[in-house]
C-alpha cells in the first residue's frame, strides 16, 4: 500500500471541499472496498478523508419514504424493522451480498460506490481502461466469464458488483449528494453510468460530491417481490446474474412491474420502456418469457460469458414467477423455488 495523509472530516462541507481541492484524495467510510484496492495498488490516494464521524447514519421513514443515511451500515439497514416490513426486497438484496463481517462494516453510500471486481481492473500489471484510461481492455478477448452482456463498449465490459444497488434501481431510489456547488438529488437510474468511452467513471458524481442519503419511495408490492441471485457458490460470491423483481398485481394481470438486473452490465440494468409495455398483460409464464426477452434485447456475449445470454432471461422468468406467487427467494435456504 502506498503511503498517504489522513484527514478526519468534521462536516460534509469540509469533506467535500477537501475532496474537490485535491484530485488525488479519496473518501473512506467502511473501508471494505477501498482498503482492498489500496493493498493491490489499484487505487493510490495521497490523502484519505475519513467521513466516519459525520452525522449520516440514520435510518428513518420520512413521509412514507425510506431515508437511509449514507453511513448507515448494510447490516443495520438490512435488519432494520422498517426496511424488513416496507422494503423487504432491499433487505433481501443486501443479505444476498458479501458476508456478515463485511455487512457490519460496509456503508450504504460505499456499497453503491464500490468498484468492479473485473480481474483486469484488480491487476495493475494488465491493461484496463477503467483503472488506466487508454491502456486497453484485457477482458474483451481475455478471461471474461463474469463480465457484461448488456450496455458494453469496446472500452470496457466490466459489471457493477453491488446487490443492494440492483434492488435500489428496481425500487426507484433517489441518491442525495452534497458538493462544493451545494446539494442535489439524482434518480438512481442516472447515478451509475454505462462505460462508453469513459469507463473510468462509474457514476455521474461530480468531483467533490459526497453521497449523503438514499431515499426509497413507498411501494405497494407487498410480498410480490424477489431478489434472485445466481453465483458460483451458494454464499459469499458476486452474482453471475441477479434479478430484483417487484410486481403489483391487478387481479391476474400486471399492474406494475419493476425489474433490475445485476451481473450483466456496468450498472443495474433496467428498462422502464419495456416495463410499460407489459402493464395489463396476464401475469403468467408466457408473459414473463416475452418480458425477459425484451429486457435482454441486444445482449452480446464475449466468449466465456456466453452462458449469461441464456441464464439472464431464465433468471428473469423465474424471478417474476417467484414475485407473482408472493414467494420471495430465501437468502438462507438457497434452493430456487
Amino acid at each position, binding site marked *: 500500500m502506498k*503511503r498517504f495523509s*489522513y484527514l478526519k472530516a468534521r462536516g460534509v462541507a469540509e469533506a467535500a471541499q477537501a475532496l474537490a481541492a485535491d484530485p488525488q484524495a479519496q473518501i473512506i467510510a467502511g*473501508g471494505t472496498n477501498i482498503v482492498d484496492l489500496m493493498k493491490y495498488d489499484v487505487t493510490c490516494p495521497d490523502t484519505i478523508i*475519513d467521513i466516519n464521524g459525520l452525522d449520516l447514519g440514520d435510518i428513518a421513514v420520512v413521509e412514507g419514504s425510506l431515508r437511509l443515511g449514507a453511513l448507515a451500515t448494510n447490516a443495520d439497514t438490512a435488519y432494520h424493522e422498517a426496511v424488513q416490513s416496507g422494503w423487504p426486497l432491499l433487505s433481501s438484496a443486501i443479505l444476498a451480498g458479501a*458476508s456478515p*463481517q*463485511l455487512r*457490519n462494516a460496509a456503508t450504504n453510500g460505499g456499497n453503491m460506490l464500490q468498484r468492479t471486481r473485473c480481474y483486469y481492473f484488480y491487476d495493475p500489471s494488465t491493461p484496463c481502461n477503467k483503472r488506466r484510461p487508454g491502456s486497453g481492455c484485457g477482458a474483451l478477448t481475455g478471461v471474461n466469464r463474469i463480465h457484461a452482456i448488456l450496455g458494453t463498449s469496446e472500452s470496457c465490459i466490466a459489471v457493477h458488483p453491488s446487490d443492494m444497488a440492483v434492488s435500489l434501481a428496481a425500487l426507484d431510489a433517489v441518491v442525495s449528494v452534497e458538493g462544493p456547488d451545494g446539494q442535489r438529488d439524482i434518480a438512481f437510474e442516472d447515478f451509475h453510468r454505462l462505460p462508453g468511452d469513459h469507463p473510468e467513471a462509474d457514476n455521474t458524481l461530480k468531483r467533490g460530491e459526497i453521497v449523503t442519503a438514499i431515499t426509497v419511495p413507498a411501494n405497494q408490492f407487498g410480498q410480490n417481490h424477489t431478489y434472485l441471485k445466481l453465483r458460483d457458490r451458494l*454464499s459469499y460470491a458476486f452474482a453471475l446474474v441477479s434479478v430484483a423483481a417487484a410486481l403489483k398485481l391487478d387481479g391476474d394481470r400486471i399492474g406494475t412491474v419493476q425489474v433490475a438486473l445485476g451481473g450483466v452490465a456496468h450498472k443495474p440494468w433496467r428498462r422502464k420502456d419495456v416495463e410499460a409495455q407489459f402493464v395489463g398483460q396476464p401475469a403468467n409464464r408466457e408473459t414473463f418469457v416475452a418480458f425477459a426477452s425484451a429486457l435482454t434485447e441486444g445482449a452480446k456475449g464475449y466468449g466465456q460469458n456466453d452462458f449469461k445470454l441464456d441464464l439472464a432471461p431464465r433468471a428473469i422468468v423465474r424471478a417474476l414467477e417467484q414475485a407473482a406467487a408472493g414467494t420471495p427467494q430465501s437468502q*438462507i435456504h438457497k434452493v430456487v423455488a
Partner: protein
Amino acid sequence: MTILPTKMPQARQPITLQINGETRELQVHPWTTLLDLLREQLELTGTKKGCDHGQCGACTVLIDGKRINSCLALAITKDGCEITTIEGLARAGALHPIQEAFIEHDAFQCGYCTPGQICSAVGLMEEGHARSREEIRELMSGNICRCGAYTNIVDAVESVLEDSVL
C-alpha cells in the same frame, strides 16, 4: 537543499483504543490496518492474517461488539472504539462458551482459522439472527476453513445457540 514532496505522508498519529478491556494510547501510521496493529505493534497474535483482503475471515475481531474483518479496517479510523480479540473472550480464567464448544465438538484441525471462527460466532450470537442450522451456515459464511471442519463448527455454534435459547 533537499526538495520535499509537496505532500509528505504523515507521521504516526495518536489514537485511543479499548483493547480487551484495557485502554491503550497508541501511535499509528494512517495506513496501518487494525490487524497489523494488533499483531505487529501489540503482539496480540491470536488474530490471524489469512488472505489480508477480507475474503477468508481469519482476522475477524469484534469492534464495539460487532464482528468485522480487521484486515480491511484502518486502525486510525477506529479511534475511540472497543476492540475484542480472541485473547479477550475468556473471563476470569473461564473460556467463553463458544471456545468451550469448539473444543467439545472438535471444531478445528490446523487451528489457523479458529480465532476468526470463534470471534465470528460470538458476533453471530450477539446479532441474534441465527435460529436454525441453515442460518448458522449462512451467517458463518464469511469464515473459510481450508481443513473443512465446517460440520463440527456448525455443531459447536448450534450447541451454544441451543443452550442460550433454553
